[in-house]
């Protein structure tokens, strides 16, 4: 029986011997699975495969152990190509990096960009790829960090991007006066083709609009939110169903809460509310609020009205709702973290609701007088991330203690970063390069 389980390959002249049990790990939907399927007269003494033996050896090792070890003489791209031949690319991706942990991240790659000027945003795809918005272009990379066909928006400024799934990218863009375009649309990540445009209707009249910040609700209710600015008074937050593509709701702006200019939207499943943060409004005060779409109410809000605006004052520059839904974390120009309790009632009075944790003293560096990039925040699996200048800080535990700092020597300050597909992507300002950080697979012992 043991010998019948044995399978011999001659790959490019080199002999390999393995078992059909090992090969079964490849699955039926792979070249090796089909080769050994009973419809293709199996049971030959030896199978010849006209491919690179070094790569085969690596992939066979992957099938045997589940772990990926790429010898130094095998270039990664070559291995990917061979894996695609055998239909084992997903196996390779699954084994290449481990589950995300902010404290074990290591720099995996740096991808230089060509576009001039500042990048707008970087977003991680669920499968480990990413996209970078740049002026009117969105550059799309697959998880092997090969650039795909870019998405070009015919010179409209991209405001925000997001992945609906690994294959669909949603883009919000500024309206160009007189052209009636702009707004929001879904594109194919693989080919860059336009799939669907989301429309806004007011009183059954389709309107053109500028779409700003984006948020996707939890995956099971297919809702997508975007801040909208129309030509007339159609300011507010639009809601679409990304399965049907139809507009399902619209939250019109209340006086004093500038929703159309929102910089950050975030869906809070535990509260059934959308967090809206407008931090750089044109006229009003800085505003953070929770919107309840069921009765079009704002059950909670905070604003910095009343604080004397002075360069030295602490200003809220970014906000994110914590994963437990109990508080909102904010950051100022000194890289201080602050927390606003969501459980307390309306804290309209003069920004007093922010509990700042003064961290600037801990940082052994001078605060640069002129900021080139605003700080950003992100959360993932209970860890809190903030970027400031050229480094990203990782805070862990319920007390949010600084546990790791990710820094690179060049590239200038970080203008945006994103976590997804078990990777962290950081977009640098000056060289327009983005770094890919990933956690290595767990060690065996």
């Amino acid at each position, binding site marked *: 029986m043991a010998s019948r389980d044995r399978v011999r390959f001659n790959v490019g002249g080199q002999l390999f011997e393995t078992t059909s049990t090992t090969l079964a790990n490849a699955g039926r939907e792979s*070249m090796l699975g089909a*080769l050994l399927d009973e*419809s*293709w*007269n199996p049971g030959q003494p030896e199978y010849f495969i*006209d491919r690179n033996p070094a790569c085969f050896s690596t992939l066979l090792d992957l099938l045997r152990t589940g772990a990926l070890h790429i010898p130094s003489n095998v270039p990664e791209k070559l291995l990917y190509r061979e894996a*695609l*031949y055998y239909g084992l690319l997903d196996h390779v991706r699954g084994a290449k990096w481990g589950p995300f942990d902010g404290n074990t991240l290591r720099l995996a790659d740096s991808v230089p960009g060509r576009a001039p000027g500042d990048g707008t945003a970087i977003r991680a795809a669920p499968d480990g790829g990413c996209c970078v918005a740049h002026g009117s272009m969105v550059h799309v990379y697959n998880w092997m960090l090969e650039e795909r066909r870019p998405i070009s928006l015919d010179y409209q400024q991209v405001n925000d991007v997001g992945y609906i799934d690994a294959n669909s990218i949603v883009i919000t863009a500024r309206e160009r006066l007189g052209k009636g375009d702009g707004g929001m649309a879904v594109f194919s990540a*693989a080919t860059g083709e336009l799939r669907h445009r989301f429309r806004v209707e007011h009183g059954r009249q389709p309107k053109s609009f500028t779409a700003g910040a984006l948020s996707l609700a939890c995956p099971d209710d297919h809702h997508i939110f975007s801040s909208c600015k129309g030509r007339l008074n159609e300011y507010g937050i639009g809601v679409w169903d990304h399965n049907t593509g139809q507009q399902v709701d619209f939250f019109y702006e209340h006086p004093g809460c500038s929703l159309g200019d929102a910089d950050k939207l975030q869906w809070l499943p535990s509260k059934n509310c959308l967090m809206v943060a407008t931090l750089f409004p044109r006229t009003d005060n800085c505003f953070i609020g929770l919107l309840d779409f069921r009765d079009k109410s704002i059950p909670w809000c905070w604003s910095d009205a009343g604080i004397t605006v002075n360069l030295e004052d602490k200003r809220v520059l970014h906000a994110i709702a914590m994963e437990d839904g109990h508080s909102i974390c904010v950051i100022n120009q000194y890289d201080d973290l602050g927390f606003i309790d969501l459980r307390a009632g309306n804290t309209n009075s003069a920004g007093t609701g922010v509990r700042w944790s003064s961290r600037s003293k801990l940082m052994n560096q001078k605060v640069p007088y002129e900021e080139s990039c605003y700080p950003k925040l992100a959360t993932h699996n209970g860890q809190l991330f903030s970027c400031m200048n050229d480094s990203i800080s990782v805070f862990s535990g319920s007390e949010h203690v600084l546990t790791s700092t990710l820094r690179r020597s060049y590239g200038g300050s970080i203008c945006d970063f994103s976590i997804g597909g078990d990777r962290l992507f950081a977009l640098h300002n000056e060289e327009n390069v983005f770094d890919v950080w990933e956690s290595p697979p767990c060690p065996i012992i």
Partner: protein
Amino acid sequence: MSGQSKKKPFKIEAYKHRVEVDPKYADRTWAVIEHAINEIYNHNASGLSFEELYRNAYNMVLYKFGERQYNGLVSTVTRHLKDMGKAIESAQGSFLDELNRKWTDHTKSMQMIRDVLMYMDRTYIPTNHKTPVYELGLNLWRDHIIHSAKIQTRLVDMLLEQIHRERMGEVINRGLMRSVTKMLTELGSSVYQEVFEKSFLDVSASFYSGESQQYIEVYNCSNYLRMAEKRINEEVERVSHYLDSKTEPKITAVVEKELVETHMHRLVHMENSGLIPMLVGNMYEDLNCMYNLFKRVPSGLNLIKDVMASHLKETGKQLVTDPDRLKDPVDFIQRLLDMREKYNEIITKSFHNDKAFQNALNASFEYFININNRSPEFISLFVDDALRKGVKAASDDDVDQVLDRVLVLFRYLQEKDVFEKYYKQHLAKRLLSAKSVSEEAERGMILKLKTECGYQFTSKLEGMFNDIKTSQDTMLGFYNSPYGNDMADMPAITVQILTTGSWPTQNINTCILPAEIVIVCEKFKAYYLGTHNGRRLTWQTNMGHADLKATFGKGQKHELNVSTYQMCVLMLFNSADRLTYREIEQATDIPGPDLKRCLQSLACVRGKNVLRKEPMSRDISEDDAFLFNDKFTSKLVKVKIGTVVAQKETEPEKMETRQRVEEDRKPQIEAAIVRVMKSRRVLDHNSIVTEVTNQLQARFLPNPVVIKKRIESLIEREFLERDKADRRLYRYMA
């Protein structure tokens, strides 16, 4: 580029030509793959090398011949399918077998072709929006085989014929049927629906339409229902064996429509076997069968429910208006209870305790119970009967059950206040004559009424109980007091002190009591008024009773148990042997009707005739004379002389009760109007009537005319006023 072309003289000519693949490469490679596809279709794949084919297909895509390869695949597979189509068309006999065999071949081949073209499936196809290889194979099969005119009609005809045979009782090859329908669903649910399901449903509809026409003529209702049930089950089973599960609701809908919906009226009204005979005969199983079938069709259950309700109303109405039944209130209520029990049983056993049916039952009872305005009185009498005779109900539990059941009828009453009036009267009689079965049962009943109608309803009834209790204490106090301790040779007295208002007392002139009794009464009165300040005692001589010791002609002694009136009459005969009616009336001052009744029971009842009447006749007239009957004999020492009481009320009494009820309603209606107006301030007439009716309907249904009168009275007393601008509106005056 232009710079390069200027450097032409240099010796870089070799690089000028782009390295190109052998132009014949694509043709040659494709030829290999096409050959392989042919061999696969010809069951001759054993000579093929998978690795070589896979590599060739990979290279085709790599060298940008993906489109070439894809188009080649389409045309090669199409050619094979055309050949297969011809083979299927010319199949003799087992057409379905042949089709199924070719289908198996095709899917198997497509599986292998897909293995070869796997790389194209992963790369070229998604980026170029092409149909994946295996799916392409299915689509081509659909277009060239299933949608081929000759095959499609034959296929459908064959399938339907097989199903028809099975319906007629033949055994068919279900495995084959399943394979073929599975093929259709694999091609897409729309293919299955358009090619097969639509005709299947049409043919089934006409089949069952014909069958039902035939059966409705010969079968009775029960048999027809069973046939329909069996047919529906068969169709469900057929779907589970070889059709797509989504067909089940569609085909059952067809069968239900043809077998049940079309004929449901005829079935329900079928003579001798329809719904009403089933109900009358308690045919639980048939009723259940009907319920289950009719539930499937729209308004099916409503039909059953409506027919049942109208039947109930009709029989109920007959029952409550039958003059024979009015003679015996207990029997009357018992029949209603039995009727309810019967239908309750039917609803529980056959109609799945359906709420709608329960409601219909309740509505019907409510309808006919209130037709007869004596129902409240009768229900109270029934309760009286249950609580009075200890013999009938063996234990408290049984009494409780009876009460629970009768309470259900009580709920149907619209005039609950009338019931309260009667209940009070009957309860008073029970309490005063100490005839109730047990205090516990009485209190239980009151508790039930309390939970049903609220505290207000029963507060007076509870007051009656308290009076009885305090009376006992008072009597004990009386006999222990100086007033009561020197009474050894006087008649013993038991006084029940009844609070005015709690009891159904009438203002009746106290009759003239015998002197012996008057002394005792005065003593008690002195005691009572001495201990309680500011009270007034009135003797209700029409309610009491007495035990008398009498000695007759031959010296035999008897103890006579009589009412207070009877006592008064008998005591007169201590000093006279013969008295005329007028003399008695004068001496006692008992009201005429009561006196007549009392004399009748003393003189005209055989075995208890302690008086003799002249002349001897059944009825008492004002010219009669009465003599002491010294020949009276009885086996018993204690003789109970009942009053000839009409248990039911007499006509004038009834009128009086009615009138009292109407009087009592007035303040309640007024209170309700004021409550409504206090909260609404301004309201029009109709809204007031609706709201007042809503508030009061737990107790009775107020008459709109009466409400109008009460409103007018409230306006006179300046609680309300008419709006000056709009006369239809009333305004509350705070």
